[in-house]
């Protein structure tokens, strides 16, 4: 569990307080509503959450 941390959304550039999050957690940017996956917490690092879909084995 991490302490509250500011996050910059990689999709819209908006900044927001993520609160206490864990690696792997999916959070939603309050500005653009995109889903973000927490990739690291020290320092906090987020990326676009992978969309569910078929990859046809590739």
């Amino acid at each position, binding site marked *: 569990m991490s302490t509250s941390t500011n996050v910059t959304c990689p999709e819209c550039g908006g900044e927001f307080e993520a609160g206490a999050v864990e690696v792997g957690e999916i959070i939603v940017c309050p500005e653009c509503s995109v889903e973000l996956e927490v990739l690291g917490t020290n320092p906090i690092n987020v990326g676009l959450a992978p969309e569910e879909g*078929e990859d*046809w084995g*590739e």
Partner: protein
Amino acid sequence: MTAAIGVLCERKRVEEKQVIQVLADAGVPAVPVPPAALPLPVVPFAPAPQVAAAFGATMPVVVDRCQDRAVASAVLPLWQGTGAVVIGAGIAATGNRLAVASALSAAGVPRPATLLVASEEAGLQALETLGYPATLLPLTVGAAPVPLLDRDAAEAVLEHRQTLGGTCEVVGLLQAGTTIGAEHALVIVVGGSAVASRHMGNETTFGPQAVALAEAAAKAIGADVAGIELVRTTAGLVVWDVQPVPDFRDTVPLGDRTAGQAIADLAAMRLIERTAIGASQPNGAHLGSTMRREVTDGVALAL
């Protein structure tokens, strides 16, 4: 009723924010329009009041920034049916990669050797002709290309796509070569002029030839805005692919305007043109003289 530029997008990403901000700074109203938010009647129809009721403004000009190309290809013709001028990627906005490749070839724009395949067997046969490595580009514009480095990979990919996805997933273009390790760049063309670019692979040494090629490609597909992917092959510089709604946050301006500024300027100019025409048309939204003067001043400042 207020007239505004609609920016068709599911969410305001960095690119859409830039365009809307430039327009706002120039005094031009622009609003994001979620492309899938409303049920739309089938053409012919005149939904200007419906649009105005839903979004609080008429939309004489719509900028296509829709990331979901399936949604975009469905709704863009309906927006055009409202009488709106759509700023988009022309054939690449609503057509598939075959239509884009055909238009480029017809215009004499150099492309990699390409074959259309519609089955696993045809794909493997095509690869015997094209050689390895090659790249499978699904027909849907914007769908991720699949590099095929050797026959084993090709068999696995084509078999999986056909078995698990059905025929719609195996139909595509096979292009000779791959972007892996190649000189590869994205050139943003707006209103017929290349305005920005970025490297996508190895450092590129593209110069005026690349600019001319990107502009020729955009013209061939009738695009107001497009991202033209260029790759240097052993045969020379070619147009590898077209991005209908390119990301441009990391691009470098080729002149004194960013890609976002160029798109905003084009949209503002189309708004002026459209509303000047629309003022004499029953269904056309139009600006009041005060707003038109503000818009004109804004465009002059922006340009």
